[in-house]
């Protein structure tokens, strides 16, 4: 009996030890990620591109002042050990890491940050990251060619940097993407830098085969002890979902982004179901309505459209459940999301009533511009047409390419359009798009104007009380729900299949494919040694 007990205890101990061992990150191996959004990377100069595709490899190669912490759901300092805020929230003093080495062996200092931000503000180059760096005092002057250096950046010493902002915002939201990566000042200006980029990231550059892959290998002097775990990181370009599916099943890749059809197939397959990882990304899908088109200038018409569409049915049948129903503008993962809000009910009778009240008892016709996107484009529009028809609204479809749709939206040349737009991670920035001072071409695509809304956003920007700010943003978000400048469709559910041997995947709500790769590791069952 005693022996039996001992055996059971020993067995449990062994099992626990095995579990603990399984959870201990393993050093070595190769991580094989995929870049699914096109057949090429735009450039090895990450300052020049804002495409999600390019940030996948950049997360291995580069580092910015801040980094996105998926567990916390917010940006946290990365290249600074401490941030001291003064000057009424406008001055941020960064105590920088003194153990961050570039891949050519030189230690990072405040000069590199100042050089990188000045580079991004070079007006003759039009770097997309300028929209973030412009929040630093004097950056706009550099952009316009009126100054050579950003006056709001001051080097106190090699590892202390003072940054003066033009408005009271959290700089973390401005300086966490690869667009504001820190380059080495001495190397970054050289012509060959783009061919062999040097960064601060956990992996250093090995090769870029245009149209095929980027290969990186472990940087041994990375500042986080013991990281990265893997020896090598390969990011392969794979834009065809069907080909990715084969490669994933064949264990040639470790991650694969899934579309709606594959999401269903993987859920139904017992061998693949366990590989699914999903997160509510900060993207809101919607139909924007131009108030310049007379019927849409009436709030009741816009509300009627929200009531006339059976959104839940579309999400379940067409999007295959790969989305979360939108209750307003801010997405589920936003810190200012209000869980108590309920979406517009599917109520055609109420929609008819609202149309009658607004002077359109027999409905009207509008032109709906859409792309072919399977999750929020033409298939969705085609399903909605009969729903709107039932309340008397006729739709004329105008189909365009995605790139053209972006132009249509930016230029305001539409009656209605359907789109997927980033609505985070900063709730204040996401809602500011509806502020009347925001130009239509910037992101106030529906030319929204509402004095109460403006006031809430302004107050949220001024207050130092985080709870009050959240409350104000929630109220503003609720006002948007009431005003219904858009048909609130869904929040994207990003879905990725991850091989069982790849550990440490983070549920990044800003973009699931963007992983802090130093935290990823592969166990001994990985076929890539």
């Amino acid at each position, binding site marked *: 009996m005693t022996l039996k007990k001992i055996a059971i205890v020993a067995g449990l101990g062994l099992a626990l030890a095995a579990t603990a061992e399984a959870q201990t990150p393993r050093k070595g191996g190769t991580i094989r990620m995929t870049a699914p*959004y*096109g*057949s*090429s990377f*735009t*450039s090895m*100069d990450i300052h*020049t*591109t*804002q*495409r*999600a*595709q390019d940030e996948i490899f950049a997360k291995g190669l580069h580092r910015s002042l801040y980094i996105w912490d998926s567990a916390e759901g917010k940006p946290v300092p990365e290249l600074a050990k401490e941030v001291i805020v003064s000057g009424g929230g406008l001055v941020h003093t960064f105590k920088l890491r003194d153990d961050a080495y570039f891949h050519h062996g030189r230690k990072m200092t405040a000069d590199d940050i100042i050089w990188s931000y000045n580079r991004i503000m070079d*007006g*003759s*180059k*039009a*770097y*997309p990251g*300028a*929209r973030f760096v*412009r929040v630093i005092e004097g950056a706009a002057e550099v*952009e316009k060619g009126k100054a050579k250096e950003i006056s709001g950046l001051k080097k106190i010493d090699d590892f202390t940097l003072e940054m003066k902002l033009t408005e009271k915002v959290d700089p973390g939201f401005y300086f966490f993407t690869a667009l504001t990566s820190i380059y080495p000042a001495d190397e970054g200006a050289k012509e060959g830098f*783009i061919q062999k980029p040097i960064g601060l990231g956990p992996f250093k550059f090995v090769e870029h*085969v*245009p*149209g*095929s*892959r980027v290969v990186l290998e472990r940087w041994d002097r990375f500042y986080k002890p013991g990281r990265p775990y893997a020896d090598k990181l390969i990011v*392969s*370009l*794979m*834009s*065809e979902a*069907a*080909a990715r599916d*084969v*490669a994933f*099943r*064949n264990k*040639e890749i470790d991650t694969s982004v899934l579309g709606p059809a594959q999401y269903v197939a993987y859920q139904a397959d017992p061998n693949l179901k366990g590989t699914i990882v999903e997160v509510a990304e900060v*993207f809101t899908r919607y139909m924007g309505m131009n108030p310049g088109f007379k019927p849409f200038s009436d709030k009741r018409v816009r509300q009627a459209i929200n009531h006339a569409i059976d959104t839940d049915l579309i999400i379940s049948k067409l999007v295959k459940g790969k989305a979360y129903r939108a209750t307003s503008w801010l997405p589920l993962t936003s810190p200012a999301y209000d869980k108590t809000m309920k979406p517009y009910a599917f109520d055609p009778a109420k929609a008819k009533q609202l149309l009658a009240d607004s002077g359109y008892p027999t409905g009207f016709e509008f032109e709906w511009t859409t792309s072919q996107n399977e999750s929020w484009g033409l298939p969705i529009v085609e399903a909605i047409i009969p729903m709107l028809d039932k309340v008397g609204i006729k739709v004329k479809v105008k189909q*365009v*390419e*995605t*790139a*053209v*749709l*972006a*132009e249509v939206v*930016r230029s305001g040349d539409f009656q209605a359009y359907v*789109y*997927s*737009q*980033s609505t985070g991670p900063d709730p204040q920035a996401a809602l500011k798009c509806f502020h009347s001072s925001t*130009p239509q*071409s*910037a*992101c106030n695509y529906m030319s929204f104007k509402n004095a109460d809304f403006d006031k809430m956003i302004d107050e949220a920007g001024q207050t130092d009380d985080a709870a009050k700010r959240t409350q104000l943003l929630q109220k503003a978000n609720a006002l948007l729900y009431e005003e219904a400048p858009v048909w609130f469709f869904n929040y994207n559910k990003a879905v990725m299949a991850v091989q069982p041997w790849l550990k440490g995947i983070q549920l990044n709500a800003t*973009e699931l494919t963007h992983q802090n790769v130093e935290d990823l590791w592969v166990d001994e069952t990985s076929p890539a040694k």
Partner: protein
Amino acid sequence: MLAFLIRRILQTVPTVLAVVLLIFVLFSVVPGSILSSMSDDGRGPTDPQVVERMKKQLGLDDPVYIRFGSYIARLTTGDFGTSFRTREPVTTMIAKRMWPTLQLIFAAMTFATAIGVPLGFIAALRPGGIVDTVSMVVAVSGLSMAKFWLGLLLMYLFALTLGWLPSFGYGDGGLKYLILPAVTLGVSPMALLARTTRAAVLEIMTADFVRTARSKGMSETRVVKWHVMRNALVLILTTIGLQFGALMGQAVVVEKLFSWPGIGSLLVDSVLQRDIPAVQGSILVVVLFFLAINTLIDVLYAVIDPRIRYA
């Protein structure tokens, strides 16, 4: 011969000019631009100030005739311009993609020729026989099968089921990575070559000079080798030449499916992102390749058939 070559090259000049004009005009009128494509993934709006600056920098606001003039001026010096996306010279971008595409096309044509021509020959020598019937069924299937679908089937069979080959990628550019995309691309010209060869051989087999050769007592092997084969080769070579050029365009689908880093995938991405200099450069290279291959085929005619002279 030299005079012929010079004449042929001069003849290509108007063709190239027409193509250049057509591409330029087409991409001047299509909606969308690199600026709109920068934000087409919805991650964030492109900053209006950046947009204005880029317009100026890239000359997008210049009148069409000025843009066309400067494009032609650059072309005459061999400069294809600078990519809007990567900010690299287009010639550099194309140079990096040229070798994988050539590898793919030559491998596909080698496969097509090695299988298609003998198949057509054998089928024609025994018309109506089992080999003829089977090979023609294969040929018709090969011609009618969509490359995307065929590629996926091959991936499932040879990568996933049998585990013999990788399903995607360029790897080190070695043979094992090349086989599946090359076969996918080569099946259609293989089928066409089989049918063309069969038709050509059947026609020649009934020609007067073949009947004469046979009536002189020449063995069937010699008839086929000296009379049928040589005469059929002119038509086969023409088909090979045309297919070589066509494959450059067809490679787009295959390159995208297999993540093969050639000009085809560069072209697709450049079109989607409205990287006009890269689009113009890529199409121009495809056209020049087509013209070069056709000129080469014309030269080869004389080698095969001495009756053809270049006056």
